[in-house]
């Protein structure tokens, strides 16, 4: 389900089936790494779109959390833990974060939800057809991650 009014109507109706929530994490920076953060955000945005298509009926794809790279890591982690608390209180059984920002990798243990870190691939100069097949491959990889997690908990 996307964060769209129509999808949310369905979500409210079929809530028992949708036990997984995904929160994309988008870094924003205006310093030297501006290009990198843009590429990361763009890549995760495209990937989460494809991922939502694959798992529409079981996941809720949140609009994503953008954060400034200038804010300290502790503060960012505290923010994410706030999100996590809210999501847990909403009875989601599986929580995932998806990002290209490796900063999160170092604080992974402090999160209850699963962190999916995908290195960003420069897609900007790519042919649409090629771009799509790369994203499809990535989604196929993630498919196993999700299916395993679901099977372990069922």
């Amino acid at each position, binding site marked *: 389900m996307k964060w769209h009014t129509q999808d949310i109507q*369905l979500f409210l109706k079929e809530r028992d089936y*949708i036990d997984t929530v995904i929160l994309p994490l988008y870094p924003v920076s205006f310093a030297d790494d501006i290009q990198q953060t843009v590429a990361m955000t763009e890549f995760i945005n495209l990937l989460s779109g494809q991922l939502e298509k694959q798992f*529409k009926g079981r996941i809720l794809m949140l609009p994503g959390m953008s954060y400034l790279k200038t804010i300290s890591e502790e503060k960012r982690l505290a923010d994410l833990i706030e999100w996590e608390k809210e999501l847990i209180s909403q009875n989601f059984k599986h929580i995932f974060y998806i990002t290209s920002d490796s900063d999160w990798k170092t604080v992974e243990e402090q999160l209850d939800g699963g962190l999916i870190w995908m290195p960003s691939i420069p897609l900007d100069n790519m042919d*649409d057809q090629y771009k799509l097949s790369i994203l499809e491959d990535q989604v196929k990889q993630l498919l196993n991650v999700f*299916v395993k997690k*679901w099977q372990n908990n069922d």
Partner: protein
Amino acid sequence: MSKNRVTRRQFLNYTLTGVGGFMAAGMLLPMVRFGVDPVLQQKGDSDFIATNQKISDLTTEPTRVDYSFEQQDGWYSSEETGTAWVYKDENDKVVALSPVCKHLGCTVNWNGDKANENHFYCPCHGGLYTKDGTNVPGTPPIAALDVFPTKEVDGFLHLGKAEPR
């Protein structure tokens, strides 16, 4: 020279009526056209989308065919992508199934589950469909997979709008 020569008065009459008629028609025709426009409008579902799949390359094993099309969403038009599972049945007829699960809309995969060979499998809630797209009773989906109308143009597969059965 013929006997019944056209008089100056007649000539002017004819010319004026002719020119006036054209002008009236020029004004009226667009109005009529506007009036009956909804009838003349082309139906969207007659649009077929071209894919890169050659018909001759298809086998009896369902293959994944991706296609892209322009989608209009209010003012915003975007490149959308879609997928179909396409194969040839026993009678060599092309069958194109929509990959959208009839339960809650996940994407189903051919042979996606090791325990259920030769079925379409939905990874979200374990929905199963047989090769012809019929839902297996006892699994969450309550209807068969949608079917795309297909067309062959210059050897390539064209897909219409998926229709429920």
